[in-house]
């Protein structure tokens, strides 16, 4: 091989070969020293393309938010500056150096956060109904999330451009597909929160609504409504967030209040919620398990686990599987149809694990936007 190369390049000293030899040497040296630089520039370019699109999505979301606030809330002045200011609103995470008592701190923190959102939305949309205000709270949360995604990607892009450090750039480049997926998911939620449509996360609330519809209802905690439903000699106490506004309520408080009322005399508790599916699992698959099927900050889950443990009540869980892109997007048909399967699962668990005369609590967890009761 070396001999053959020798034949082409050094031995036949034509002008062309000298030029070729020089060019090849340069190309080799450039590639040797600048390969990483070229790769860095390519990655920066890909981040830049994504950043431009995320910026468009974020600005569209902000414009749609302002438009919806004006349409629904009919404010007197220009609300755009106030919306822009609130888009940058942040909440500082709790210090967990000494974790003792952090759940109560989290409870207080979340209530403060909710109070701020309610006050801001009330000021921005003074003529909106409570249901519409709940939807507008969700809408502005989506816009805020998109704004944060944009700012984080922009931060790494500019930092990478400034330092030209491949490791800084790689940090964001590696998670770009996941970031795009998240931004896509939030972008699809804009329409749902503008119009008040049920979303993927509403499946738990729909299951509860299907069980409790037509029975007398009462408020049992903040934004939580419950109904007693007779079923095959058992009493089902079904509760969900009070709809149809976009709210998840305080299901932990609802559960605690019911258990206090019943002095812990409950046979089983069934929680129904949307759950993230693994790649390959079909959308709308209904799976059964044990534990508290609830997401969020963890405060609700902790309190539910604590109270059920205190009364030694088994907790069953029903999960309705869906992709990240479905969670805040308008509900798709297979997910709505899956709620019927989940209702059947609830009934089957009740028959399998309880006797006539028992009391069962069924909690429909999730955002109740577009779902009455």
């Amino acid at each position, binding site marked *: 091989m070396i001999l*053959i190369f020798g*034949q*082409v390049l050094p031995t036949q000293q034509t002008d062309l070969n000298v030029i070729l030899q020089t*060019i*090849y040497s340069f*190309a080799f040296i450039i590639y040797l020293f*600048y390969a990483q630089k*070229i*790769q860095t*520039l*390519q*990655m920066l*370019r890909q981040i*830049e*393309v*994504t*950043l431009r699109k*995320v910026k*468009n*999505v974020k*600005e*569209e*979301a*902000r*414009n749609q938010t302002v438009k919806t606030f004006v349409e629904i809330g009919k404010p007197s002045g220009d609300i*755009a*500056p106030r919306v*822009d200011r609130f*888009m*940058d609103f942040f909440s500082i995470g709790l210090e967990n150096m000494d974790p003792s008592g952090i759940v109560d701190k989290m409870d207080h923190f979340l209530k403060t956060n909710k109070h701020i959102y309610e006050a801001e939305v009330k000021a921005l949309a003074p003529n909106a109904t409570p249901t519409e205000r709940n939807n507008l709270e969700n809408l502005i949360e989506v816009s805020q999330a998109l704004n944060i995604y944009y700012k984080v990607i*922009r931060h790494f892009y500019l930092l990478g*451009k400034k330092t030209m450090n491949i490791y800084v750039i790689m940090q964001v*480049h*590696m998670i*770009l*597909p996941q970031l*795009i997926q998240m931004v896509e998911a939030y*972008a699809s939620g*804009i*329409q749902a929160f503008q*119009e*008040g*449509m*049920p979303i993927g996360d509403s499946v738990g609330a729909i299951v509860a*609504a299907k069980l409790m*519809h037509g029975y007398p209802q009462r408020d049992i905690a903040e934004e939580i409504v419950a109904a007693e439903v007779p079923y095959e000699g058992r009493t089902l106490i079904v509760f969900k967030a009070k*709809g*149809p506004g976009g709210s998840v309520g305080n299901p932990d408080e609802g559960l605690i209040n019911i258990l206090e009322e019943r002095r812990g005399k409950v046979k089983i508790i069934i929680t129904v919620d949307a759950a993230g599916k693994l790649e*390959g699992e079909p959308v709308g698959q209904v799976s059964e398990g044990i534990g508290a099927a609830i997401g969020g900050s963890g405060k609700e889950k902790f309190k539910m686990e604590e109270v059920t443990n205190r009364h030694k009540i088994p907790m069953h869980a029903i999960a309705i599987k869906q992709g990240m892109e479905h969670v805040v*997007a*308008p*509900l*798709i*048909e297979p*997910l*709505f149809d899956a709620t019927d399967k989940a209702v059947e699962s609830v009934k089957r668990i009740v028959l399998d694990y309880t006797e006539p005369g028992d009391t069962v609590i069924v909690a429909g967890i999730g955002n109740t936007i*577009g*779902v*009455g*009761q």
Partner: protein
Amino acid sequence: MSGNQGSTAPAAGMTASWVAYAAILIVGLLSLFSLYMGFLNYADNTDIALVYLFIGAAGFAAIGYMLFRGKPTTAKTETLVVKKVEVFTTLECPKCQQKRVRDFKRGDYVYKDDEPCTRCDGMMIITKISRKKEEEKKKDESSWL
């Protein structure tokens, strides 16, 4: 736009792509020339022609590698838009079971008493709100899973 909050826009220039694509272009031209020389010399001097062909092929392989190595980690961004989807509301009359499907309107919600039934004197209730069924995805290689 006031919503921008003083954000710095991505650089308007295409410096990053310019350098990368210029490098790819140069290597591509050299490889092409090499292949041309290879074909030209193939009849008279096969050994030398093979070296030219090898260099040309290696050049194109390097370009392919350069383009390919960044691609798998990025996802398609075409879907990154705020899109509107068609959502339908299904109404049912609990008395006569009449069913009607219409476009979603702001204010609709599941179990809302919506409008009088056209067949009987009952009130139609919204029983379902959902987006149009997604089109079946094309079967891919992993469909056996």
